């Protein structure tokens, strides 16, 4: 199972995650990510990893177990 976690102490609401992974991440009224369900569907795992790498604050974590 692959999951997305946000380190809220790092997140600065850049919003790149939502642009790169709109299927899973929307933004709240302040620009912070709202992740739709923690589990990432197999077809989106690669995009999720790219979104995590692109985060300027290194706040997004994609973990597989």
């Amino acid at each position, binding site marked *: 199972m692959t999951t997305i976690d946000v*380190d*809220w*102490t*790092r*997140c600065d609401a850049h919003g790149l995650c939502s642009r790169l992974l709109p299927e899973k991440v929307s933004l709240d009224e*302040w620009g*912070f990510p*709202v992740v739709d369900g923690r589990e990432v569907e197999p077809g989106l795992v690669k995009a999720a990893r790219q979104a995590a790498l692109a985060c300027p604050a290194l706040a997004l974590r994609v973990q597989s177990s």
Partner: protein
Amino acid sequence: MTVLADHPTASVASIGEPRLLAGVAEHGRVDHTQHLRLHGTPVLRRRSWLATALEDVNLLGRGGAAFPVAAKLAAMPAGSHVSVLLNGSEGEPASRKDRTLMTYAPHLVIDGAIVAAHALDTRRITIVVHDATAHDSLVRACDERTDAGDVRVVRTHDGFVGGEIRAVVNGLNGDRAVPPGRRVLPHEHGVDRRPTFASNVETFAHVALLARLGTSGYARVGATTEPGTSLLTLIGDTSHHGVFEVPNGTPLSVLLPPSPAPVLIGGYHGVWVRSAGQLVLDRAALRAAGSPLGAGVIARPHAGTCVVSEVVRVAQWLASESAGQCGPCFFGLPALADDLAALAAGAGPERADAALRRLALVRGRGACSHPDGSALFIGSALETLAPELAIHQHHGTCGLPPSTVLPLPKGLS
């Protein structure tokens, strides 16, 4: 706003024989001579004995999370490198029980620390405390006895969020006293980044009593599901004011004479309920009923006063206490406080809907429990105080004098 007197001796009392607060009504501060007469020297038990006893009496942490202490102990390695950490920072502004315990019965707290350290085969003990009088009493207590040479008493200056155990650990280690973003627990990375057995100061006083009395002696008082007593802070229209030692299992109605006013259970991360009803002092049962006991604060405004105005003020304070690390808390709590203020001034149901949407955006989206606890306080106020809010919506006010029972730290209004 009410600022509770910091050390109201007259307001320390109990139902039945006090245990933690034994001797306090007679002597005030229990010094070492009186402590030895009441409790003797600490009874040092082996780790295996303590683990079984903690499980048998179902001792739950007294800082607010009510985590089973036996499980905390089981997760600990032993040896001279590990630490024992007593959290007496008591960041919850409505709570007085920890500073009261440390001020009046410091030796019982120290006994518990020594028992825990012995079981873990270490001598490293740290007590963190915010309140000046409690700090001085603990330091004096360490000087009064010969077995507390290794106890370090540290004064902290951090607020509500800074009192969370992981924030305390960061502060002790020389970092900023805020909760870490990653899931780091004290039993892995605690004091000096080493495994640390950490709990609230009242927890340790119970550990001392348990080691002395044994399981059956300890369980002679309290509920079968949760033996022993608890320290509560009672505020406002309650049967007693101040710090109260109560046997677990006591019906909350005993503490709350009949009144139409709502009740706040658990403090500023707690829950508003319309009445105590059939609730009893049992942490698991209260949690199951949706109103966890938290750090043991039970407050009730006086009938005929405006609760809504007080809820607004506490919500504004909760917003101001965000450590500013996590966006949803930093932006969400002020927005929610504004929503509540607008509803108090007569805003329509669309504003209540906005507040409900924002509550969902705050919950579970932070490094610590501050956003979740604050959402619990605000969300339960919106639900439980619906009749009061309806009056505000129609008239822009309820015309009642503001309730002034919920304390906020000095200098805030």
